């Protein structure tokens, strides 16, 4: 009985670690999106250097908004690593 519970906990912990890693795949999307936004911002500053302040400000806001999906993935990963909600569901 005790061994079974240990096994169950081990499976849950291992699967949670895998899940935390998998959740961070969400970082790909914001990375690509922000890179594209920054590239476009550089392009437009090169074309119109006098508007660099406004372009930079708008770009940072856009980056922050685009980042939120990545942040959600990160929060899921952090929950699985430090506040695992599944480990307490195992009852002996």
């Amino acid at each position: 009985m005790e061994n079974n519970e240990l096994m169950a906990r081990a499976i849950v912990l291992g699967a949670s670690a895998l899940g935390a890693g998998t959740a961070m795949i969400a970082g790909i999307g914001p990375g690509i999106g922000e890179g594209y936004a920054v590239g476009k911002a550089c392009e437009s500053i090169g074309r119109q250097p006098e508007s660099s302040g406004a372009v930079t400000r708008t770009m940072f806001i856009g980056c922050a908004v685009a980042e939120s999906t990545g942040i959600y993935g990160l929060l899921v990963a952090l929950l699985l690593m430090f506040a695992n909600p599944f480990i307490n569901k195992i009852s002996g």
Partner: protein
Amino acid sequence: MEIGNLLRGSPDGIDVRGPGVLCSFDVFGVTINLTETVVISWGIILVVALLLNWITKDMKTKDISKKQVVAEWIVSTVYGLVDDTMGKHWHNFAPYIGALFTFSITGSLVSMLGLRSVTADFNAPLTWALVTFVLIHGTNIKTHGIGGYLKGYIDPVPVMLPINILSELATPVSMSLRHFGNVVSGMVITSLLYFALSAVTKSIGVAFMTIGIPAVASLYFDLFSGFMQAFVFIMLTMAYISNADGRNEE
């Protein structure tokens, strides 16, 4: 040299916790926790208030002192930013934006003093986002009237009602989660880095790694990220609130 230490990690594990509860008391059956965040926030409020009180003392119109120049620069910067982003008719809105920015950035930077960041507790950004949420809807009701406000929910077709409500509710959630996630990810990554480097130090025996690298990482995560998130938070607040008002559409 034990490389095994690197893979095994330290027996203590990594220490990532929520804010500590200093004391808790019952008020009419509701447990109120006095957390680290609350105490540090009040400390920040006190220090900032005293600082501002000192900086604005003895204001003159002729041969002004250095601290008055600083005070005037802060005020004119905040007012200029609000005028640029929201338009001239939102001029009176600058104090709220300035207060939000100051609280957010000092709340993040307080981690450089070795205290726990206020913004690394989800309650703090959530509170600010809820204040902004109330302001957005208050502005909307003020400009469009209660009927026009309610009509906005069934704007294109009445079928859109649940989607519109959800998108309104998503605003404070995404704003607060973005701020919280950025700060707390910096905190976790710094502690993971510190943990890994101390394992390297333990296996090599020379403490050359733990000194420089975490400082650089904390410079990025605390200074740059803290500033960036405070800025993004106020910019989004201004954008949402001035969007709720129809006057900007010209």
